[in-house]
């Protein structure tokens, strides 16, 4: 009750009538000088209550300094805020704020002990909870959030109504629920609070419930006592449970292989242990025989037989007991936690799906350029990964010249496209054009280009990773709940992938270029006879596919490191995406990217610690998948597909 009174005083304090301020703090402190100079945990509460009741100005500051050991008592018994500088003190008057200097002699520093400081701190928090400055209120609320305790409940509750800031008030209300769940006086109040948590998937709410449900293990010879959480079956792992008995001093330790060896080594005499010659001790059976001999002679503790172990286990019960004694509370908390966990599992699934979606967008971006060149021209471009790398380095170099990250990205995207478009066209003109109808050799020639480009990048930019910094507005994440959050960069990449999907579909389906590309894909001879120049189309297609790789490179560089080997990391995945999806089809690539993205995230979910294993299994899956759908998800049918 006293706590509540104190809280009410504190709350009324900022709006307390100022006539009370006629009394100044120094005077008030002098009235309680003894308790303030030598406070004890017991007595300090009353003093604080008196101080708070006075409604005097400057009390929170004083309490803060007091707690920080910043208050000194002068030879005349007056209190000052002081700061020691060598032998001198810089003194500040508590009421007027006047600063003066003094010799340290004669002044004593007030050093409240830890217990007292805690009580002061609690009072201080109460002041801060109602502080006119919202920033201070917020930090006070967060302090409670970090280390909740029973005594904070009432002042917190009392401070809600007068808080003008809706955000802070909402947070206070939330914290009140957390605190009541743990510390409210009546069981009913606690259960009500706990039940209101059963829809809250935040990490904080879950930790509150878990704290209520904290358990400790006990071993007893009799019946389990208290609020039992679970009893354990010792037969599941007898050795481990027996080890616990031994640890509690309730049983004698089993003799391990190491014990046997140590005992035997200590008891060798005349080349024998007991009756057994040392040379024969190379088997477990002989060692046991020798040890039994020693035990019979009483020189080492005897073996604890399995039967003795089981008897000891049977004589004891192993169980977990809740720290919370009230079983109604723990039942409610368990029910709430189960419900929360279901929601969390659901949210995690949603989060996983979002993750998979963004991974799929990255694969799509990385692969779509490849799909275009592979699908339209039947050309495998092993240097595609290096075009991605070129795009990423373009972004890096642009940032060296344009420090504004937003502008530099806007410049880098078209520049990367132009650069890789040019590289693609050059490559097509110089190399690939001569190798049509020899797809395996295209693969090898472009591989040669790939190693040359990779080494060239290494020579120019060095081996260490280069940063490609994203603009500030792409930092951070869109937080839907504690479980579901997705970084803005990934959203941006997703949007970019959608834009490209739309763009490519538009180019292929609605433009003259797309029509010509499709014509060349289906029948180059016929297209040529209709006045379409297949060479030009091939060149443009290759340039287009390469240009998209450059843009993908900028996007990937934003969230991954830019290294000369980054292309190699994506090339195999991109091939998989194209092959799994089905060649020559934008939708196929989309399907392939989605399948691979979701699959990889799914496998990682089963085995989160091991991304290597996830990749291994994914590739094995793809190998098997291709057995059953050799032409991919979206397969061309008919005679055209057979050629």
């Amino acid at each position, binding site marked *: 009750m006293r706590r509540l009174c104190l809280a009410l005083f504190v709350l009324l304090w900022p709006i307390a009538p100022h006539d009370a301020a006629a009394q100044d703090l120094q005077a008030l402190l002098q009235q309680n000088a003894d308790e303030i100079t030598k406070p004890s945990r017991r007595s300090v509460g009353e003093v604080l209550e008196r101080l708070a009741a006075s409604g005097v100005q400057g009390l929170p500051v004083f309490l803060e300094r007091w707690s920080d050991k910043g208050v000194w008592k002068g030879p005349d018994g007056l209190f000052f805020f002081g700061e020691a500088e060598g032998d001198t003190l810089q003194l500040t008057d508590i009421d007027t704020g006047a600063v003066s200097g003094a010799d340290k002699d004669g002044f004593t520093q007030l050093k409240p002990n830890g217990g007292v400081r805690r009580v002061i701190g609690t009072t201080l928090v109460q002041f801060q909870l109602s502080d006119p400055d919202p920033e201070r209120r917020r930090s006070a609320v967060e302090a409670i959030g970090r280390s909740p305790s029973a005594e904070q409940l009432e002042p917190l509750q009392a401070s809600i109504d007068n808080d003008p800031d809706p955000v802070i008030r909402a947070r206070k209300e939330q914290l009140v629920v957390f605190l009541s769940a743990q510390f409210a006086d009546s069981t009913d109040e606690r259960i009500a609070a706990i039940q209101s948590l059963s829809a809250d998937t935040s990490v904080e709410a879950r930790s509150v419930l878990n704290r209520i449900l904290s358990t400790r293990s006990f071993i007893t010879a009799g019946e389990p006592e208290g609020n039992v959480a679970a009893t354990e079956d010792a037969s599941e792992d007898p050795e481990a449970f027996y080890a616990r008995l031994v640890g509690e001093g309730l049983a004698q330790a089993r003799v391990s292989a190491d014990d046997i060896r140590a005992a035997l080594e200590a008891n060798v005499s005349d080349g024998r242990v007991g009756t057994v010659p040392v040379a024969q001790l190379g088997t477990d059976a002989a060692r046991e025989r020798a040890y039994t001999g020693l035990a019979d002679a009483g020189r080492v503790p005897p073996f604890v037989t399995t039967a003795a172990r089981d008897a000891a286990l049977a004589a004891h019960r192993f169980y977990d007991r809740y720290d919370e004694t009230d079983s109604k509370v723990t039942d409610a908390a368990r029910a709430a936690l189960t419900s929360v966990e279901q929601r969390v599992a659901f949210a995690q699934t949603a989060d996983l799906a979002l993750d998979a979606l963004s991974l799929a967008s990255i694969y799509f971006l990385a692969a779509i350029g490849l799909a275009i060149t592979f699908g339209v021209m039947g050309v495998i471009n092993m240097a595609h990964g290096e075009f991605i790398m070129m795009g990423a380095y373009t972004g890096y170099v642009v940032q060296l010249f344009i420090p504004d990250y937003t502008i530099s990205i806007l410049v880098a995207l078209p520049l990367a496209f132009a650069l890789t478009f040019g590289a693609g066209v050059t490559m097509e003109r110089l190399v690939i054009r001569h190798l049509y109808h020899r797809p395996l050799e295209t693969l090898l020639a472009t*591989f040669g280009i790939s190693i040359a480009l990779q080494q060239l990048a290494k020579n120019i930019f060095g081996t260490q990773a280069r940063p490609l910094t994203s603009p500030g507005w792409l930092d951070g994440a869109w937080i839907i709940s504690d479980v579901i959050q997705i970084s803005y960069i990934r959203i941006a990449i997703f949007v970019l992938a959608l834009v490209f999907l739309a763009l490519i579909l538009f180019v292929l389906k609605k433009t003259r270029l797309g029509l010509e590309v499709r014509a060349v894909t289906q029948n180059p001879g016929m297209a040529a006879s209709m006045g379409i120049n297949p060479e030009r189309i091939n060149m443009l297609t290759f340039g287009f596919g390469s240009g998209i790789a450059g843009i993908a490179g900028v996007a990937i560089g934003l969230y991954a490191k830019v290294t000369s080997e980054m292309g190699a990391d994506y090339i195999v995945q991109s091939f998989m995406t194209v092959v799994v999806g089905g060649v020559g089809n934008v939708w196929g690539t989309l399907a392939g990217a989605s399948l691979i993205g979701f699959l990889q995230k799914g496998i990682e979910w089963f085995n989160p610690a091991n991304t290597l294993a996830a990749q291994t299994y994914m590739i094995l899956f793809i190998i098997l998948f291709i057995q059953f759908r050799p032409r991919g998800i979206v397969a061309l049918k008919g005679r055209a597909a057979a050629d």
Partner: protein
Amino acid sequence: MRKSFIAENPSVLWFLLALSGFTLGVVVLSEAGGVAVLSTSFVKTLGKTLCLCLIAVAMDVVWGYCGILSLGHFAFFGIGGYAIGMWLMYARTETIVLESLASQVIPPTPQEISDAIGNQIFGVVGSSEFPAIWAFADSLFLQLAMVVLVPGLLALVFGWLAFRSRVTGVYLSILTQAMTLALALYLFQNDSGLRGNNGLSGLQNIPGFESTPQATISIVFFLASAFALGAGYVFFAWLLSGKMGSVVKGIRDNEARVRFLGYNVESYKLLIFTVTAIISGIAGALYYPQAGIINPGEIAPIASIYLAVWVAIGGRGRLYGAVIGAAVVSLLSSWFTGGGAPDINLGFYTIQWTDWWLVLLGLSFVAVTLFFPKGIGGLFDYLVRKQP
């Protein structure tokens, strides 16, 4: 029969003569041979090169003759190396462990020995348990069987799956690359049972020959590699000499036609794929004791692509071409990257070959594909045509 085979394939005889001459020369000039012009490490490099030539011959058979651009044969090579490496590492560690346990007051039990070996080998990956795949590591004979069986079975299963569903051309290449990547990623894991990215090391120490100098061991392995290359070469030349060669080349040039002639193309491909995989495994088993260490990085897809590069530069569809390609490119590669090549000072920029060799290799590879599809081996055609 034998006579007619050699008579019909004079190049085999020439190759064997050249190989014998080279082998003899190296033995005489080595430290073990007494002249000691060639250092032991250079003899090892030459021995390793012979193993690379052997796998290049296998690659040529599967790609140059049968038309399957496998990007997975280096995986089989690595598996062979791992299989023999397991025995080498186990047996060597066992010797060391037994020596250290001998000073104990009482003799060790088999369990203690096994635990101590496990601790030594798997300590680096925080384990001391022997994984199931090490069950036969104590037996040289069984591990040698693994050198042949594991690549063979893997190739058989993978090939059966892939060929059965008619995966061909670049699709097949990518699929084999995926297989290689999956294997490498698996081996990179610490719980793969093969020491993760630490790989197996100390393989140059041959158990039972601790007191034999490395100079002698290097020559023995060099001879074994030369013998394996010669035997492998003759085997493949024989295999492809007659009608089998016709059918296999037919599959390369027009698979459907061969099928309509009544040949079951899949079983031919499977046979070639598996046999070359086994030879690759054997080459790997000879290579890694000379290299001394094997780790998953060796198996990475890039290695298999380099293999294709060697064969292409040497000249596809002729076995000696593969040998020339592998020998020339891998020796040049170690000369350039080892700092053997003099830097070129252009005044404003100095070309350091350690940095620029890969650029040169990449570009020359493009040039070979574009302008000399027959590779170095094509020069021989030119010479032969000029003579008469």
